[in-house]
């Protein structure tokens, strides 16, 4: 639990550093603090899992929480390393941005380790309120304003649904505690309709938060309008946390009622896959394509909840890790190309391989991983998801997903084709040293997980 305390105190330290104009120290202090938090999280890892609820049953920091805290903290470190010089262009007060990102991370740690619906709500809100601010940090840029307002209105709207669902569940089971709710579900075979309505409303609220169809319509606009670095944070760390919370709630509480909610989620999954992939085909902007691709990946991640079982947590963990590291490379490359060309269209990647072979290579690895080509982490993630679904006899779902994976190859390869086969005279993109470190680490992790999945596959 020290992880949460460190991540909550660190932003306050950063705000003081900002007050005393120690701008140079911001990034090192953040990274060191996050590594300390990561160390504390990993120190509480134990196999077999013996974690007990703490703080009067409010939190449970078990292996599930350790795994998801670790992946979100590592992804945040990588994204923050891409931020060298990024925030300075927007404003002189840089410390606040780091602080708000870390506050958001604190909410995420609460989301992955809640044991009470109150903590779920508080975690989601701490995360979201910070993100509303982050989406709008380019105050004079109209797209950023619009993204912030849309994100805010949709986020507040979905919070309403989530809360109404929590209330109806409280009204039936008389408790917010996950263990008490589960016992209540098991001991009441004929559950009243209020409880079912509650589950339905919670599904609506959480699908809004993770951006699953038909509640995805805010995602492309918000992802496109927000500053690219914040989009990277939203589509990797926040999405991972959303699914961790989703999975934790449903596997802890509602697993006995799966006959009711599996059909609903099945429809949502299929819709999400098709809408995400087919709309991504028509995009001209790389950033917007990544937004739609994040919708389709939400569809694959929903597999784990549809086919809820002992291996679900592991599959979400592997998939989210693979997706996060590949996306970080993609967004990092996008930031560099955007800085050079001022445009985020596919054409701005033309001829990149000639001048920047390294950048083109890591971006290719990332795209292969997102498309799920073997020997990359993305393939292992998809493999675990599909085999989990097959174990539950969801054959048609797997066939639909395989078709979608083939569609997705088409738009991921567009950027590779642009980089390698569309020779255009262009200036070399300068890749700062920080970016190189992030690219090398992420690309290596993608390939290592792709070749030796064993060391990560039984983490939880």
């Amino acid at each position: 639990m020290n992880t949460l305390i460190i991540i909550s105190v660190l932003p306050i330290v950063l705000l003081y550093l900002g007050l005393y104009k120690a701008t140079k120290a911001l990034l090192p202090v953040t990274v060191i603090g996050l590594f300390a938090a990561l160390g504390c999280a990993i120190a509480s890892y134990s196999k077999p899992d013996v974690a007990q609820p703490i703080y009067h049953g409010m939190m449970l920091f078990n292996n599930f929480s350790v795994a998801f805290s670790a992946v979100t903290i590592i992804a945040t470190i990588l994204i923050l390393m891409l931020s060298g010089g990024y925030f300075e262009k927007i404003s002189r007060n840089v410390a606040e941005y780091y602080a708000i990102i870390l506050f958001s991370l604190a909410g995420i740690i609460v989301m992955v380790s809640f044991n009470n619906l109150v903590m779920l709500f508080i975690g989601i809100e701490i995360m979201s309120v910070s993100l509303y601010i982050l989406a709008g940090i380019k105050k004079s840029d109209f797209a950023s304003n619009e993204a912030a307002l849309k994100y805010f209105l949709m986020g507040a709207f979905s919070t309403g649904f989530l809360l109404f669902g929590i209330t109806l569940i409280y009204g039936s089971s008389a408790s917010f505690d996950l263990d008490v709710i589960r016992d209540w579900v098991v001991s009441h075979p004929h559950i009243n309709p209020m409880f079912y309505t509650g589950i339905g409303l919670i599904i609506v609220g959480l699908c809004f938060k993770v951006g699953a169809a038909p509640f995805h319509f805010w995602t492309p606009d918000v992802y496109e309008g927000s500053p690219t670095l914040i989009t990277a944070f939203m589509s990797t760390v926040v999405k991972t946390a959303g699914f961790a919370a989703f999975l934790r709630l449903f596997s802890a509480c509602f697993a006995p009622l799966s006959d009711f909610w599996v059909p609903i989620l099945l429809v949502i999954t299929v819709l999400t896959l098709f809408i995400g992939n087919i709309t991504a085909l028509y995009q001209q902007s790389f950033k917007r394509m990544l937004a739609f691709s994040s919708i389709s990946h939400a569809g694959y991640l929903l597999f784990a909840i549809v086919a809820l079982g002992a291996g679900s947590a592991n599959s979400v963990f592997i998939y989210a890790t693979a997706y996060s590291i590949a996306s970080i490379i993609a967004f990092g490359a996008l930031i560099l190309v955007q800085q050079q060309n001022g445009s985020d269209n596919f054409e701005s990647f033309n001829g990149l391989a000639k001048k920047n072979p390294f950048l083109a290579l890591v971006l290719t690895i990332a795209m292969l991983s997102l498309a799920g080509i073997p020997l990359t982490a993305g393939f292992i993630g998809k493999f675990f998801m599909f085999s989990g679904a097959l174990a539950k006899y969801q054959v048609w779902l797997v066939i639909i997903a395989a078709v979608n994976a083939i569609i997705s190859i088409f738009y991921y390869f567009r950027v590779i084709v642009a980089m390698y086969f569309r020779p255009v005279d262009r200036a070399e993109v300068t890749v700062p040293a920080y970016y190189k470190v992030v690219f090398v680490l992420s690309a290596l992790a993608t390939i290592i997980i792709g070749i030796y999945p064993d060391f990560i596959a039984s983490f939880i």
Partner: protein
Amino acid sequence: MESLTNTIHAVPLNHYILLSTIIFSIGVMGVLIRRNAIVIFMSVELMLNAVNLLLTAFSVYMGDASGQVFVFFIMALAAAEVAVGLAIIVMIYRNTNSIDINVLNRLKW
């Protein structure tokens, strides 16, 4: 305090559920139909307050205080949301001189 609990008990629980559902639906319709950012915002608050009312009613009927504590959390976080949300609306107004969400169509829906 005792009389307050009795007053709440004087109305059957189903009526509270019905009332909250109606208020919540008014809020949802408001968000979906109205075009003014501040009115949408007020509708969201309506949704949250419907939840607060229902939580209090449940809490009294079950004799369990945790529901009322949750209401305080919702109020505190709603206040935080208001602070951030109004700041965003002010930012939009400075750039466009309007708070009609129809002007927000630069990005495709």
